[in-house]
Structures are given as structure tokens and as C-alpha cells.
């Protein structure tokens, strides 16, 4: 008489859906490999040691920003202030070197990340305590932090000559052909990814993004978790600011200006749902790599500068379209709507 028995879901079917989930990140990876492959065939120099190093270095800062952004987006929030936080922290880094030339590098790195964390805490506190939409608050702090940066810098510029050579070498040195900065980024991404996957508080971030009301009812400290996510995003933006100095050497108060939309684009291209609850920082980091690689490959492929911007836009659309097509297939597999 058990009529429900027919509704058992075959485990084979589930395994397929698991695979498709994996494909989300895999898809970006494939796109990345394809892009690099095609470009390399057109111009083999694209795979020269120097060029590969440039590619990796180029993605590093965006990948770190995207990791922080992904953490926030997973909780159904967004942090538009990352570009400004990067600018502030980069300027702090430069100023520290300028005013205290003897300062050990780790102290400076920590100071940059700490400043970022403070900015993130401001965002997080406003959002969590006053329960207001993150997009509005961080659009506001985008202006505020940048304004503070301008006010502080007052048109000053910090040049490579002001920064200790040892620190600048961080930006160029490689370990087994991989730039040190990239190693840094990979460690950050892996740690963040593992934390989100394997720790209760990490999973709670997904829960919050999936349904904030349900999260509150299940006893999750929503405010505290969201606050923490913003602090993390801020700290990573701060870290990115420090790395920015190591990489570019020259900087003024405009560092990171306009980065926010690139970061959000990287996260979205990386398969993190903009309405929270799903996606991974690995995907976001890959999305950042893909975007940077597009930026580097287009000139190599001979695209005129005027077409490059348009192509980036078209590729962003293509990437999110593809991701959508994949997730629709997953949904179909599950026999559910939407």
C-alpha cells in the first residue's frame, strides 16, 4: 500500500546533478583553458614564461578581491566599496613606507589588512545593526572611503623609489615560475574555500544567503555572520591594497577606482549567484582569472583597443548566460521548477 515508494530518487540521477554542480567551476576552467589555448596558437609568445607570469600576476589582485566579494555575495549582500578600500589601504601602505622606511614588511601587510577590516567593519556594522540593504550602504561608503582617501592623499603620489626594494621584489619574485603574489592569492582562496565548505560558520553564510528569514528562525546569528563576512571582504580588499603597492609601485589616491564593478563581474562570471546561497570562492577566483585573461588576450589576438571593451562586455554576458544554461539543466534534473 505504500504509494510513496515510487518517488524514490534514483541515486544515479543525483550523481549526475552532482557532476553538473561541479561543472559550474569546471566550465569556467574550460573556458579559461580554451581562451589561453586559442590565444597561444595565434601568438605562441602568449605562453612565454614572462607572459604566463604576467597573466598570473594580473589576476592576483582581482582574485583576492573576488574572494572577499564572493563571501559577501553568498550571504545575499554585496560590497561595492572594495575599490575604495583597496585605495585607502594601498595609500596607507605607501605612506607607512614613506614615513617609517625601516618598518618590517609583515607589519605593513597586517596594517593594510587591518585598515581594510576596519572599513569592512563599518560596512558590516551599518548593515547588520541598522538592517539596511548592503548595496545602498556600500555605494555610500564607496564614496566616503574614496573621499577620505583623496582628502588624505591630497594629490600626493608615492613612487617606486619611495618603497623598499625588498617589498617591490615581492611583486616580481617567483617561486618555481609562479609569482609570490599569486602564491599568496592561491593560499587565501584555498583557505576561504575550505572554510566555507567545511565549517559550520561557513555553511551558515550559505544558509543566510539562501533564505535570511529561515536563517534567523533556525537560530543563526545572522547579524554577526553578515558582519563577519563584511569584515572578511574588507580585510581581503585591504590585503589587495598592499599587494597593489607591491605590484605597481607607483600609486596615488585613485588606486582601485572603479574596481567594484569588475569584482562583481568576476564573481558573477565565476558562478556565484548574485542573490546569494550558492557558488564558491574558487569559482569567483576563476572568474577573476578569466576576466583578466580576456583583458590580456584580446590585445594579443590583435583586437583593436576600441573593440576590447566591447568584447569584455560580450564575454561577461556569454559567461553568465552559459552558467544560467547549466543551472537550468540542474534544475531540470531535479524535476523542480525555477
Amino acid at each position, binding site marked *: 500500500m505504500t504509494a510513496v515508494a515510487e518517488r524514490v530518487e534514483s541515486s544515479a540521477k543525483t550523481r549526475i546533478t552532482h557532476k553538473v554542480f561541479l561543472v559550474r567551476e569546471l566550465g569556467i576552467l574550460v573556458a579559461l583553458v580554451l581562451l589561453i589555448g586559442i590565444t597561444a596558437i595565434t601568438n605562441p609568445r602568449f605562453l612565454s614564461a614572462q607572459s604566463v607570469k604576467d597573466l598570473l600576476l594580473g589576476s592576483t589582485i582581482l582574485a583576492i578581491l573576488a574572494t572577499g566579494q564572493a563571501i559577501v555575495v553568498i550571504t545575499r549582500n554585496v560590497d561595492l566599496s572594495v575599490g575604495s578600500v583597496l585605495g585607502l589601504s594601498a595609500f596607507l601602505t605607501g605612506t607607512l613606507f614613506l614615513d617609517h622606511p625601516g618598518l618590517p614588511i609583515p607589519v605593513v601587510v597586517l596594517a593594510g589588512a587591518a585598515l581594510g577590516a576596519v572599513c569592512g567593519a563599518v560596512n558590516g556594522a551599518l548593515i547588520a545593526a541598522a538592517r539596511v540593504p548592503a548595496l545602498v550602504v556600500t555605494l555610500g561608503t564607496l564614496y566616503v572611503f574614496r573621499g577620505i582617501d583623496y582628502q588624505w592623499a591630497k594629490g600626493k603620489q608615492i613612487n617606486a623609489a619611495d618603497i623598499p626594494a625588498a617589498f617591490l621584489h615581492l611583486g616580481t619574485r617567483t617561486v618555481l615560475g609562479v609569482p609570490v603574489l599569486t602564491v599568496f592569492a592561491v593560499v587565501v582562496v584555498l583557505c576561504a574555500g575550505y572554510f566555507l565548505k567545511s565549517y559550520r560558520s561557513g555553511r551558515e553564510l550559505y544558509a543566510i544567503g539562501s533564505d535570511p528569514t529561515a536563517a534567523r528562525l533556525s537560530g543563526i546569528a545572522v547579524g554577526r555572520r553578515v558582519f563577519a563576512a563584511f569584515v572578511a571582504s574588507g580585510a581581503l580588499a585591504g590585503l589587495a591594497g598592499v599587494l597593489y603597492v607591491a605590484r605597481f609601485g607607483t600609486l596615488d589616491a585613485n588606486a582601485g577606482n572603479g574596481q567594484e564593478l569588475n569584482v562583481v563581474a568576476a564573481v558573477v562570471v565565476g558562478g556565484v549567484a548574485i542573490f546569494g546561497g550558492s557558488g564558491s570562492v574558487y569559482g569567483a577566483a576563476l572568474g577573476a582569472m578569466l576576466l583578466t585573461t580576456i583583458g590580456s588576450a584580446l*590585445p*594579443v589576438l590583435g583586437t583593436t583597443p576600441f573593440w576590447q571593451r566591447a568584447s569584455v562586455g560580450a564575454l561577461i554576458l556569454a559567461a553568465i548566460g552559459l552558467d544560467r544554461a547549466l543551472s537550468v539543466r540542474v534544475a531540470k534534473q531535479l524535476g523542480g521548477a525555477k
Partner: protein
Amino acid sequence: EDETPSSTSSGGTGGGGIKSGLKVAFLPKQVNNPYFDTSDNKGGKVAVEEFKGVYSETGPSEASPSAQVSYINTLSQQGTNVIAVSANDKDAICGALKEARTAGAKVVTYDSDTKPECRDLFINQATSEGIAKVQIKLISDAIGPDGGEIAILSATANATNQNAWIEMMKQELAKPEYSKLKLVDTVYGDDDDQKSFQEAQGLLAKRPNLKGIISPTTVGVAAAGRYLSGSTYKGKVQLTGLGTPNQMRAYVKDGTVKAFALWNPADLGYLAAWAGAALASGLITGKEGDKFTAGKLGEFTVGKDATVLLGDPFTFKSDNIDQFNF
């Protein structure tokens, strides 16, 4: 006139005939830009203090013509006597400048000009020919007699002065002595450090035979220098352009860059302030042949199209760069 850009010798007569209390406002393309910080706050401000005027600097935080218009409107309402402006667009701010002039302000453009009819004077840091000539000469010297492919890393695609220089460089390259140099590419770093850096990187990835880069913008040349000095192309691909000594010192020292050029931005702002004051005091009207004294820089003559020329660009090399600090 002194040959070096930071001329301090030939002392002018000071504020002779200049009205005191003139309100002089500097409106750069963008505040927070170190180049304009030098020209306005280290040059213009000094001049205004010398002739006992009231100095101010104002402007948008991003280099867009529409934002500049809003500031021009404000300045004209504030009863400013002299507006010294570096135009983000040669046409877009014309309407606002006209209204400001109707309201009684004298308009001096510096660094980047508008259409001649929109302003009273243009303070030209160097002629386009002069800039183009020196850049091509520098890159040719750096690359050597065999020549090869070169590329330009410019600022924004719409920058008036950049495009004028690029045009002149092409004419210069047509000369027989540069027949071995071939301009293969022009890319735009948008005067953004990061973007310029990536464009430099893209150039080298794309052009295996590239021998030299000219970047006629301070942001671009610094970014390209930074990229080259940290890459395997250091010393193999030559770089020159318009840069400031402080930004470029490290790259000249480490051999990435042999020589580059620039005028003294502080002198540019200084001259613009004096020229504006002379206009506002009725000493000159801006017609060709008018003469006025610009403090320590001495006497200048208004040339064709109401233009005043600061001088020739100055070339910085490893043996003279340490004498400068800006």
C-alpha cells in the same frame, strides 16, 4: 631664459601693474592628480602669492568634461577674476567658459587647450612639434641605428593634447632619418596606473619584435617603466616619454629608461597665473605680440592664436636627474 625647467635665476619685476586681490582659481583636469598638484599648488599658488591675489584650486575628482563644467559655473558665480583651466575636452566646456567670460572672468587654459575662441590665452607647455621631435629623437637614440618597431602608450583616446602629439610624431617619423623606426600600435592606458600597466604588458605580449615604447603621459610612462623594470624585457625594449623625475628616477637608475622629457609643471602653473593676472589687470588683451612679465620666469610674448609658449621640453638623463625634485 634659463635652460633648466626649474629656473630660479632671471628675477622678474614682480607684481608691477598687476591689480592686487585678484581671485585666481585653478581648475585642473582632475584634482588628486600629482601632476596638477605640482602645477597648481607648487606653481600657480606661488605666483598668486607673489602678486598678492587670492588663490584657490578646485575641480572634479574624475577627469570628465561635464564635471568640469559644473566647477566653471561655480567659479563664475563666485566672481572669480582669473580661471586657469586644463580642459578635459576642447569643446564640451566651451559653453560654460563663455558664460564665465560674460560674467567677467578671464580664462587661461594651460596644459590642455580648448578651442581658441573659448579662452583668452593658452599657456602652451611646449609646442606639439617640439614634444613630438624630442620623443622621436629620444626613442631613436635609445634603440640605436638599427631601428625597429615602436608603439605609443597614450592616455585616454580623447585627450586633445595627446592626439595632437601623436599626429605630430607620425609626421616626424616620416622623415628620412627615422625610416628604420616603424610605429605599429597605439594603445590607451586612460591615465590610469593599473590600466596603463596592463596595456604595456599587452603590447609586449602581442608584439614580439617591439623595440621601443613612447608614452607621452606621466602616468603611462611610469607604469610602463614599472612593468619593464620588473620583466625580462628590461633593457631590451626601450622606453621614453613625458614623465616626472621623481616617478622615473628608479627606472633611470636601473637602466630601464635612458632618457625622458618634460617641462616643469610648476613653471607652467606659475606662468598661467601671471598671464591670467596680466589679462585681468588690463595689461594685455591676448592679441599677438602682447608682452608681459611672469615673475621669476621673465618676459613672455603672446604668439599666434593667443598662445604663450613656456619653452622647449627638457630632457632628463641619469646624469642630471638627481638635480630635480618634483
